[in-house]
């Protein structure tokens, strides 16, 4: 097979590797900020952490040294590096997992799989998108809306592990705009609204 990934059709942006590790080709990265360097905007990135909700981007086709510069994309679709031991199938959701550069099946999805392009090197090809919905469980009850002030609290994201909910270790701040308290033990759906995670549906 002489398949060339269509990298030339994607938009590429420079980034600086602030992770303290070598970034593998097509690895998923957490974007931590941006700097202006001469006439270009350069993103700063790190390895996906437990801090949930930041933008993510995908490294280009070569590894990037510690402190070095690379090229990343959030162009959809694009090739991405997935975790060994899973077999991505069309329509599966894959997403970042704290502490690793590869996409994990069932995690809050940045990626909907189209096809595996290289099973040896674990490269899938799929649409890439920001995460705007997540299932979370509050660490403690989140107060109801009081006048104009929503209640808020730390929430842990959960994911679908082959039909069973499992903890991701991602945490974020969830906001409660309802007149009812969100109970700590309940799974709740959170949507990203104006840059904050807002509870929209609480499990029974």
């Amino acid at each position: 097979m002489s398949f060339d990934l269509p990298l030339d059709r994607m938009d590429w942006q420079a980034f600086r590797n602030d992770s303290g590790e070598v970034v593998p080709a097509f690895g998923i990265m957490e974007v931590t900020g941006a700097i202006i360097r001469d006439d270009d905007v350069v993103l700063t990135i790190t390895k996906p952490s437990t801090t949930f909700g930041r933008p993510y981007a995908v490294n280009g086709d070569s590894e990037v040294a510690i402190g070095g510069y690379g090229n990343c994309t959030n162009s959809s679709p694009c090739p991405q590096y997935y975790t060994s031991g899973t077999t991505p199938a069309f329509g599966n959701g894959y997403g970042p997992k704290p502490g690793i550069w590869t996409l994990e099946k069932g995690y809050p999805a940045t990626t909907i799989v189209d096809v595996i392009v290289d099973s040896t090197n674990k490269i899938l090809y799929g649409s890439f998108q920001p995460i705007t919905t997540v299932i979370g469980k509050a660490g403690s009850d989140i107060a109801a809306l009081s006048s104009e002030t929503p209640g808020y609290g730390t929430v842990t994201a959960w994911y679908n592990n082959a039909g069973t909910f499992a903890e991701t270790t991602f945490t974020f701040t969830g906001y409660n705009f309802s007149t009812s308290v969100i109970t700590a033990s309940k799974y709740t759906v959170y949507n990203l609204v104006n840059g904050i995670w807002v509870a929209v549906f609480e499990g029974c």
Partner: protein
Amino acid sequence: MAPNYPQALAFFDKVERIESLTATLAHGITPSQIQLRITPQRRTIAVNANLKITYGNNKILLQDCQCDVANLQYDQSGQVFALTILDRRWKWRHGQISGQYNLRWEDGKIIKDKEKNKAAAGNAVADCERTPKQLAKLCLEAMGEKNYDIDDMPNDARPLCQWDVANPAHALQELCDQLGCRIVLQLNNRVAIRRAGVGRQLPGGAIETLSSSIDPPDKPSSIVIVCGPTRYQDDFELEAVGLDTDGSIKAIDDLSYAPTTSGTYGKWSAADAKTFHCVSDVTARKLALKSVFRWYRIKTPTRVKGFDDPIERIRQLFPLGDELVQQAKIMGTEHNRKAFVYGFWSRKGIKGTTSGTQKGTLAIDVDMSDPSIVPLDFSVDSRDGVIKFDRPMYDQPTAGTPSAPGGKLAPCGTKNRPFKLRVAVTVREPETGAFNRYERKRKMSGTNTVTQPRYVRHDEIVLNYLDGKENNKKDVDKECDYYLDALEKEYDITQPESATYAEIIECNPDGAIQSVTWTINQQGGSTSVSRNDDDGSPVTLPYKIRRANEKNKKAAAAVGNAFGLASNGKDRGYQV
């Protein structure tokens, strides 16, 4: 009793009394002159008319002559006019011809379109092969000639013609020069193309004087046809080069702005090849974006299959072309195949089985879908010999860390993973920069003197090498021989002869009889005939000088056109 000679008479329009006449008919495209001495006339003389000379039953008719100059002179008989008229070739100053014929591909093969009706639209050079006779016909018709005779012309060569609003008579003369032929205006008013030196003997008759001499030509020891630069098709290893801040082109690791740390694959192995923020200086970064991993050049020293010496410097291969010797038929037309690049390069981070199908060598008759062939267009900067891709081309010979698909970047062509350009090149000598050309030599017989050979260039004939072997030598030799035959003919020992006859005779110029001059004066009529010689006459310059003048006038006209100078239509370069 004195012999009863007929009276020699000349007539031109309504000229009442022609005291004397000298008229010459000679080879070439310059109109021959006729000089008349006439008494002052009561009536206006027509500008264009026929000139008729009669001598008993002999009649010479020169049609459509043109008055050129009239000068008032005084002599013993009083006031006379010297009237100069030109034969009908004065018309050949005008007209134009345009066309490109016998154009060739870079490898010297004539561009042909066997399916004439399917010639690709817009392909002005399709089916441009023409025989000499066909070319002569085009010229003669553009000159307004009819009923011409071109049967004697040799018809095997395929001379290159690139006429762009050219004078058709000049075009025809140049064609005849190449083929050893002469343009002859005959007494029957027909234009004929004759082989130089081939024709009748001097006519018999009342010969007054006869001179015969031997004029051996300045024969060289040999004649050499020098072909166009020889083309060698070969596969050349490429190296990555870049544009430096001083405008020079260097290997990428030698660039002044190359990263300072050097890894296994050189200084650019950790580069961000799409943005080059690894280069700190913003001006240099733009140069890197433009050239690093995008520009490649043939690695030197190298060897060219079929050429004996090694190529030490890239300039020996300039200008670099973008075609092969091999051809392919596209829409019925033979085209030279385009050069291509093959070998190992990154399939964008995918290693393993995919890159394993790439190869560092390819057969001559390769299937163009071979995965080793880079499926990208590139341009060839022939001036700098640089192959330019429109996207970064790099290799990733090893896996990344940690066990990731794409490893560090390496310029293509490193670490025993060849990256090659298959192209046809010309080769220059290292010391002189002169092109290497094939030469076809013919030793001249009948000469004991050792001279330098006579060299004649024919750039349109090109010898090709494919895989180190001569690919078209038989055809090249055959074509060279056409021209050698014509050139050799120039050195045939001719016996120049000239005779003067005490009468006006009807003598037609042909390939051997180069000039006929008729004279009428108080002594009567006479005819001078020159065979295998044309040293001129009282009214006409020798052929060689006329030909030189024609070439000068053509060059001057080109300059005049370039500077927008107007011509008054008068042309006196041929006057004595």
